[in-house]
């Protein structure tokens, strides 16, 4: 491998308490080394198969529990051409409905990705058909002029809906397995981070000119750090990474606050590592140790000083105080999980074009003792085209490159993805996707 030094990252071998995030290495799945056909990224037919056998079968992330604090509070999210209405109920549960009036097909609620405060009912803007917050018909004006009566369904079409990890999830599959079964190891792994304590500080959507899977892939391997993100070679170890594949989902653990073995240790602390120290409350100028020991020094400092900064790290192991515990929840959630923040990407397919996608970016941050809940305002969601907004240097670098990947994939001269061990998560992701598509094919027969 292309390295300038040898390096072994010291990792915690024990989880933090009995409910801590498991740290053991998962058995490496046997996924072969076959080429991944490029048609999966560019073919409208494959896109249709994905919709029929995967998107409409899985659990999907909608919004946060805190977006719907009171009964009647509601939120609309979209997947492909479907619009989903999520409504907080009087019993504190959340119901999901297709966001469509049964009369003439008008979208019932026209807003999108914006928490809406307590409705006592939902009235269609076209002919005033009115639905209660539990979805049932409340009023159909001039009902006596419908000789066939009201639609027999009794109200909005409901979908499976549940909550985990401070997030509300829904599925387009009426027969979907329970959310907790679907998520598998995820709650056990991520509950210690207490996402419910974090607050949303940024939310936006950018339309990217690439297939949604090209985006998922870009965040599922660190092999591209030496190519696209060279500056990160002075921030993380892109080679000694623990990759764990589970049933549907996967993760990798990346040490932050260290140098890559691909670079020689500089005489001074690299600027990005200084930021890690400053964020923890340390003064880089007062640090006398080796650059290689900074990660441990930061872990120790945060362990000792977290409580006085109003941060409860008690459920997290030392590595989690510095490192990226990076999770991919199938099919489209990328989570950069850190003790102090969660950078979450939701990747959605474009409604018609396999060469486009919607990249949803969310930043959640753990408040410190200076946070004022009264003053906090949830940021408003905005949607952009590529190039209209910066997502920070690292994601900008990916976003700049992805359209070229998508263009390249459409070339006659390209057959498919030639995947190495450092990209195992990509292979695992495709394996899961193919299982959905295969099972769909069996059902059809």
């Amino acid at each position, binding site marked *: 491998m292309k390295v300038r030094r040898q390096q072994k990252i010291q990792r915690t071998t024990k989880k933090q308490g009995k409910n801590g995030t498991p740290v053991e290495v998962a058995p490496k799945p046997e996924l072969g080394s076959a080429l991944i056909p490029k048609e999966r990224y560019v073919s409208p037919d494959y896109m249709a198969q994905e919709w029929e056998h995967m998107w409409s079968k899985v659990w999907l992330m909608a919004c946060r529990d805190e977006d719907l604090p009171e009964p009647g509070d509601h939120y609309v999210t979209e997947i492909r051409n479907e619009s989903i209405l999520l409504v907080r109920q009087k019993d504190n549960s959340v119901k999901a409905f297709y966001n469509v009036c049964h009369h003439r097909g008008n979208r019932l609620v026209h807003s999108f990705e914006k928490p809406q405060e307590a409705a006592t009912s939902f009235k269609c803007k076209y002919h005033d058909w009115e639905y209660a917050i539990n979805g049932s018909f409340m009023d159909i004006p001039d009902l006596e002029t419908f000789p066939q009566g009201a639609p027999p369904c009794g109200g909005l079409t409901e979908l499976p809906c549940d909550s985990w990890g401070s997030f509300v999830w829904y599925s387009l599959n009426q027969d979907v397995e329970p959310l907790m079964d679907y998520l598998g190891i995820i709650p056990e792994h991520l509950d210690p981070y207490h996402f419910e304590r974090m607050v949303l500080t940024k939310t936006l959507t950018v339309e990217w000119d690439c297939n949604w899977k090209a985006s998922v892939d870009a965040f599922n391997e660190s092999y591209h750090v030496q190519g696209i993100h060279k500056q990160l070679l*002075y921030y993380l170890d892109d080679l000694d990474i623990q990759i764990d594949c589970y049933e549907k989902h996967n993760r990798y653990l990346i040490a932050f606050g260290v140098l890559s073995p691909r670079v*020689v240790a*500089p005489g*001074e602390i690299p600027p990005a590592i200084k930021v890690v120290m400053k964020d923890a409350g340390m*003064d880089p*100028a*007062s640090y006398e140790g080796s650059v290689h020991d900074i990660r441990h020094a930061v872990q120790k400092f945060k362990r000792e000083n977290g409580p006085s900064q109003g941060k409860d790290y008690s459920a997290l192991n030392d590595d989690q105080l510095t490192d990226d515990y990076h999770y991919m929840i199938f099919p489209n959630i990328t989570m950069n999980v850190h003790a102090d923040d969660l950078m979450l990407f939701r990747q959605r397919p474009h409604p018609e074009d396999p060469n486009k996608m919607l990249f949803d970016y969310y930043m959640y941050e753990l408040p410190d003792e200076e946070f004022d809940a009264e003053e906090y305002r949830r940021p408003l969601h905005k949607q952009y085209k590529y190039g209209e907004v910066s997502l920070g240097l690292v994601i900008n670098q990916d976003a700049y490159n992805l359209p070229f990947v998508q263009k390249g994939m459409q070339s006659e001269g390209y057959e498919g993805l030639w995947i190495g061990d450092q990209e195992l998560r990509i292979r695992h992701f495709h394996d899961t996707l193919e299982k959905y598509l295969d099972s769909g094919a069996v059902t059809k027969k």
Partner: protein
Amino acid sequence: MDLGLRDKNVLITGSTAGIGRRIANLFAAEGANVAICSRTEESVKLAVKEMSLMAEGRIIGAPCNIKDKEDYEKWVADMAEELGGVDVFIPNVSAGGGNDSERNWWKNFEVDVLGTVRGVEAVLPFMQETGGAITMIGTTAAVETFMEPQPYNAMKASLITYAKQLSQAHGDTGVRVNVVSPGPIYFDGGAWDMIKISNEKFFGITEKTHALGRLGTPEEVANCVVFLSSQAASWVTGVNLCVDGGYTKRVQL
């Protein structure tokens, strides 16, 4: 041109890696006896071993924390005793750049300024009868705006003033005092290695800013330090020699 360094005794601080090491290597190659130091015994031992393989003169060294006055003075005394005097002194250690807190000012003062002053005061008695050369390491960041207002730039600037006045005060004893101020220098593990990898664009702009179109090498800095410290520069004292390939743009009248 004979540099006349054979059998001269040279003390260099912070000389197991980077530019300091290249300076030490070159003195050794010129036949001088060289004494080196760094904070860890391990790195001193390794550097002494490596340098001795190619040196004709003696190569010695001992660990020394130059922030510790007594430790530093002891190192100078020990090295001088072992070599039998001091002819050349290169105070090379630096705390480097950084502007994270007020602590950076203290560090650059302690390491760059006091690390030079204490060394100079410790070696001057050895030069009173035989004369000698002191060559300090400055930076072009002291003479032109560079990066941001930071203690490294300002503290290095103070050395240029200090060197000039020393050269006046001790000229009558045959002691010459000069400064070599390098511009951006590229080497493995150096600050510019990091910038080249992490910010290629800025690196490219910096290359083009040089009249000679590239960054300097540690050897090119060492050449100037060794020259100014040698008999070949016997009529040069009190100067600040910018070794920067035309990176700085001022007219030095």
